[in-house]
């Protein structure tokens, strides 16, 4: 649906986007992850036809943005970082303008407004002036504007920024519900967001793609060791010593004891069956095992790992 090839954008000598390529399949949500200033917005602006690339091509639904900008623009719904709202208008007036400028036929406009408002749940504020709305509602009006012409592709630049936790949850669910009918690119610098909403992740830093995978795959591929939390009934020194002696345990990260129970956080080699040997060892020693839990490495870890420069590009 979206093919991006060798896209480069230079501002003078500054390279904002450096030779990036990726694809998004129909109906998928792609998370575009990176710190602020990594080139996310620039890439999105190129794909939406807001600005041209220095080099490379972006093809949306078979049309090259550089050659057929109007065709591409009519197939894209775009929500910039700050929703582009005319705050003096009512929600209805604004959406009517958005619908018309996106080439919806005059007679079909009321229907389009109604269904967009339904999807983003803003029917209750439809007649209000936009500047009187809360940030969350404004964001949703922006989203309604992006989906009003039922575009094949949705491009959302940091759609949850500045919202409160409940609103964030709602917007995420909304985005997920839109996938399938729409192909979505979503940029964010919030890591859990990608894991929660996206089918695929592209991590970009300083204009370069440094990783490209599914959220799960990414977490798995960088994981060489796992963290294990163990709670055992027994004396802490002996338990620690015994645990260190077990094959596969690399280090004890934390240990503490309380009421005769000691809890340890162990770093274990991924290759060995550490959990099995540990539980066997504990039962041999007569200590009862209260709890054993694998700490999944989060995208947070992936990100820090990648950003620290030790990560290699994966594809």
């Amino acid at each position: 649906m979206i093919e991006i090839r060798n896209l480069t954008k230079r501002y003078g000598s500054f390279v904002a986007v450096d030779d990036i390529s990726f694809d998004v399949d129909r109906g998928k949500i792609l998370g575009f992850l990176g710190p602020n200033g990594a080139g996310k917005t620039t890439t999105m602006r190129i794909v939406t036809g807001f600005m041209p690339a220095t080099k490379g091509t972006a093809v949306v639904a078979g049309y090259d943005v550089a050659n057929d900008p109007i065709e591409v623009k009519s197939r894209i719904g775009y929500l910039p970082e700050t929703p582009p709202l005319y705050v003096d208008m009512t929600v209805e007036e604004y959406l009517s303008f958005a619908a018309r400028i996106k080439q919806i036929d005059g007679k079909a406009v009321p229907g389009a407004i109604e269904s967009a408002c339904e999807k983003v749940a803003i029917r209750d504020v439809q007649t209000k002036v936009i500047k009187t709305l809360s940030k969350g509602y404004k964001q949703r009006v922006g989203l309604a504007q992006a989906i009003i012409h039922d575009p094949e592709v949705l491009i959302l630049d940091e759609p949850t920024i500045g919202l409160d936790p409940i609103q964030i949850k709602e917007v995420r669910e909304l985005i997920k519900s839109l996938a399938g009918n729409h192909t979505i690119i979503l940029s964010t610098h919030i890591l859990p967001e990608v894991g929660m909403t996206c089918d695929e992740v592209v991590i970009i830093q300083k204009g370069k793609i440094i990783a490209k995978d599914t959220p799960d795959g990414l977490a798995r591929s960088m994981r060489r060791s796992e963290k294990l939390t163990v709670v055992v009934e027994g004396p802490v020194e002996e338990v620690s010593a015994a645990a260190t002696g077990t094959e596969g345990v690399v280090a004890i990260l934390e240990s503490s004891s309380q009421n005769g129970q000691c809890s340890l956080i162990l770093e274990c080699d991924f290759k060995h069956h550490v959990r099995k040997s540990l539980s066997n060892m504990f039962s041999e020693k007569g200590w009862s095992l209260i709890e054993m839990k694998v700490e999944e490495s989060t995208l947070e870890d992936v990100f820090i790992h990648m950003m620290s420069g030790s990560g290699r590009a994966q594809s």
Partner: protein
Amino acid sequence: MRNILTIFNREFRSYFSSPIAYVVIGLFLVLTGVFFYLLTSSFLQYAANLQWQAARMRQPAPPVNVNHMIIRPLFSNISVITLFVVPMITMRSFADDKKTGTLELLLTSPVTTAHIVVGKFLAAFALYTIMALLTWVYPLVIVLFGDPDVLPVAIAYIGIIGMGAASVGIGVWISSMTENQIIAAMGTFVALLFLWLVGWFANFSSGAMGGFFQYLSIVEHFDDFAKGIFDTGHLMYYVSLCGITLFLAHQSIESLRWRS
């Protein structure tokens, strides 16, 4: 065409959903009204004086020309007042969209930059035209109580509207270069003031240079219209100035894509 109409509709309504249209039109009518009052009262004084003198000389009073004494100076004044009012009409045009980010909506919608520029220009120009035509009450008063030639009034309005097309064009262009409304208004005001004052420079320079300055002056071209003389040359000046500035506005918005 449909796209231009869509942009036009939104822009035109936005003038009336904010106080801008009312303030601008009100201000304009008050200023022109003051000039109309001053011109009329001095005309009446002059006419009364003539009559008194004629009566003293035991002669019939000579005819006085209202067109010459009220209508022509009135339209000259209106033309100058528009120079002050146009910046207020056009300052928001692109500057506001750039500031609030709505330009991103326009530029990522399936419309061309030309549609956007023309739509915005027409909205500002329509507001200007409505404002200018609201002054019809002044000539009407003269028609009711005097006996002016009406054709020169119509020609003067063509001149006012032509001049408006040029100055609104300049305003839209300058607004497209900044995201600050105050700068847009000041810039437009200075540009229009320059095009007005450049006519005075013409008086101090001779030869080709003087002629050039004279040609450049936006108000100089209005003189004939105020006199009731319809000259397509003057209209062409306004139309070309409008065309050039809209082209420049188009280029300035397009260049944003390359630079920003």
